[in-house]
């Protein structure tokens, strides 16, 4: 009886693939848009983001930015014909292994261009697969240089870690810190990369690194390493790490009586950190891509009001975003989507190779500033915003502009 069953199942196994040749499975939810009258013309855009795992919160904020952009511009004109843009979302679970299978499922669903991801490790892991399939990917907030280096199909709309590390080292030095402690996550390209760029810049400025500590992914007990840091007594702590780790480090540090200010990179701009760390989060400083309060950019002001209305329209969005504050990564997600659309228009085709070739020449002014790509595929960006947590909210402190990663120039905010 069982054998009989097994045989039927095996037969099904062999027949189903053939049957499925005509109906390619789609790897994710498709956000349907109202744009009718465009016939059957559909172009698929892949969204490769973590919605769960340690970076799930930030990944979802990027997805929100992309969904909003898709709602705003649901169609694109290619060679005189209107195509509906269909988002194919997959969850890479903030995990390199999952990222590979998520990337494969995206590639197999026939997307023309891919947006994402939050977190450099997953982007690096998936880069080979995108390159092999010759599908261009536009990184949203993966800041490690390795994402685009040596990969002709990976682009990104954010700045990179050597720049960010220099910015934060300059900030720390400017605050009068002479000694610093660095906490990084083992095996996380973003965290250890940013940590080492900070270390080298801080040393170049004349500071000393009093202590370097590393922790493992999913570690929740930081008391042992924080005790060591307390003993080293640094003026400032730099702890680039994931959103999930941030409140744990902040709270446990304060519990042990460490009073030195804690700083980090772009990942920490997430409301859940303030929510979970409470009063202990006050005074935390970080660098990020975009500031809500900057009204000089008209694209940005339009985006802000539109995006807030978008958030308010859906309770679950508002809840997951942690209120109405617009995260920089949402703005970057919005920009990445629009850059992709520009490239599709420029290519005049749904062919991913043509889109890749068009991306090289994209010149687009978005929410986070003007975006053009250098030969690596990195956005030419030389401005970072420093924010601090004050009265339970992210407050703009100043912008830092660095022409090349060697010298820094700080513009104080008013």
């Amino acid at each position: 009886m069982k054998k009989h069953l097994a045989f039927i199942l095996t037969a099904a196994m062999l027949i189903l693939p053939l049957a499925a040749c005509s109906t390619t499975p789609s790897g994710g939810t498709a956000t349907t848009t109202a744009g009718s009258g465009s016939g059957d013309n559909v172009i698929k855009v892949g969204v490769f983001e973590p919605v769960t795992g340690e970076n799930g919160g930030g990944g979802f904020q990027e997805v929100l930015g992309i969904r909003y952009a898709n709602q705003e511009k649901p169609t694109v004109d290619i060679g005189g014909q209107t195509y509906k843009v269909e988002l194919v979302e997959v969850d890479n679970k903030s995990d390199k292994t999952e990222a590979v299978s998520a990337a494969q499922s995206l590639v197999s669903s026939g997307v023309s261009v891919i947006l994402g991801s939050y977190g450099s490790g997953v982007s690096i892991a998936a880069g080979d697969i995108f390159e092999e399939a010759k599908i261009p990917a536009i990184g949203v907030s993966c800041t490690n240089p390795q994402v685009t280096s040596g990969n002709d199909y990976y682009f990104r709309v954010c700045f990179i870690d050597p720049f960010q590390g220099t910015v934060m080292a300059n900030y720390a030095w400017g605050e009068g810190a002479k000694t610093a402690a660095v906490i990084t996550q083992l095996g996380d390209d973003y965290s250890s990369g940013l940590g080492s760029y900070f270390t080298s810049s801080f040393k170049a400025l004349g500071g000393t690194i009093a202590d370097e500590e590393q922790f493992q992914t999913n570690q929740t007990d930081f008391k042992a390493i924080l005790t060591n840091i307390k003993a080293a007594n640094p003026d400032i702590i730099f702890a680039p790490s994931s959103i999930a780790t941030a409140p744990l480090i902040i709270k446990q540090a304060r519990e042990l009586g460490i009073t030195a200010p804690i700083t980090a990179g772009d990942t920490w701009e997430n409301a859940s950190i303030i929510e979970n760390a409470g009063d202990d989060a006050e005074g935390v400083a970080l660098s990020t891509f975009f500031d809500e309060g900057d009204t000089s950019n008209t694209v940005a002001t339009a985006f802000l009001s539109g995006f807030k209305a978008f958030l308010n329209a859906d309770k679950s969005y508002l809840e997951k975003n942690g209120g109405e504050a617009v995260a920089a990564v949402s703005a970057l997600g919005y920009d990445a989507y629009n850059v992709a659309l520009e490239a599709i228009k420029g290519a005049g085709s749904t062919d991913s190779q043509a889109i890749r070739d068009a991306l090289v020449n994209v010149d687009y002014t978005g929410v986070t500033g003007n975006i053009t790509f250098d030969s690596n595929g990195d956005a030419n960006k030389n401005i970072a915003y420093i924010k601090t947590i004050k009265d339970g909210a992210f407050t703009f402190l100043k912008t830092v502009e660095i022409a090349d990663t060697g010298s820094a120039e700080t513009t104080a905010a008013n």
Partner: protein
Amino acid sequence: MPVNKHRKLSPVLSLAVILLLLIFLIVLEQHQASNRMVVAVLQKGAILAVAAVAMNLPNGFTGIFSLGMAGFMSIGAYITAILTIPTDTIESVYYISGVAGWVMSIKRALDGLPQPLLVLVALLIGGLVASLFAFLIGIPVLRFKSDYLAIATLGFSEIIRALVASPQLDRVTNGSYGLKNIPGFATASGSGALLIPFAIAAVCIFIMVLVINSSYGRAFKAIREDDIAAEAMGINLLKHKELSFVISSFFTAISGGMLAMYMRSIDSKTFQVSLTYDILLIVVIGGMGSVTGSIISAFLITASKEWWLRFFDQTLYIGNWQVPLLRTGFRMVVFSVLLMVVVLFYRRGLMGDREFSWEDILGLPRRWRRRRAVTAAARADAAEAKDGGKHDA
């Protein structure tokens, strides 16, 4: 006699199926661009089939409950990866701490080999190193009884994972950053994407079947059924357990190497305990002690997990009605419930400890007829007995 006829027919049928499969694979390989999901599922299925059969060898055939699969897979995967990553791009993979000199000199020495041969050599080296590890680990661990053996092998797999990820081995394994740029199965033109993994898997499984059917295999089964009796019959327990464990580890490592080629980028977290559990799920559902069961269930489970049942993870609308329960994570809940149902009510799995054979398939109608006759007769007997009871009353 019908049975005899079947016996003559079965080699022909097997050959026909193999040929059909071969043609199917070749055709699919040529159209892989439009069938990526099928190709990916078949590749992963072939890899997991090797791993499942290799896990079945100690667990199903020898009665050693070993949970060290993930550790041996990581040995195979890392060695295959390190040896096959193209020498000219390896610097960019180890961009944080650089490559150790001796690793580079081994790579340079192997550089002369053509790509397919290099892969084969890498897989074999991975397998041999894993066997060596298994041999050493086996000396103390195989003396333990079931649960302790399980937790000790699981512990060893965690120790191996920690070693692979340790900063001290940064220049060899790239520590916890993992490896990327691992070449896949296919050559640049895309050929071999299916034939190569299937060929490797077929050879591996064939060798394991030979072992199982040899006198060693019979000794394994004797140990499984009753180790004290087996020892009394003159079977050297430790030697045979060691043998089963080492052979299993060799092929587990090869499947690990194939997994690295399939995934193209690996890190130590790929080889957590959950990987062992995934393979265990395949073995249990296929049937402990059945090679064909493991193979069938490897393909079935991979296909349902990666493809057929993916819709479980997505919110689905039929018209305006949202199908309840479907959202991220539901797929894995279904799988774990399935595993529990098999464990509790269907303990023999798909195939029990029997193997697939054409004779059984072809003999089915006859046996059904007979069974129907038997049940009918039994029913008649029961009815008669009931009637008899009534008469008595």
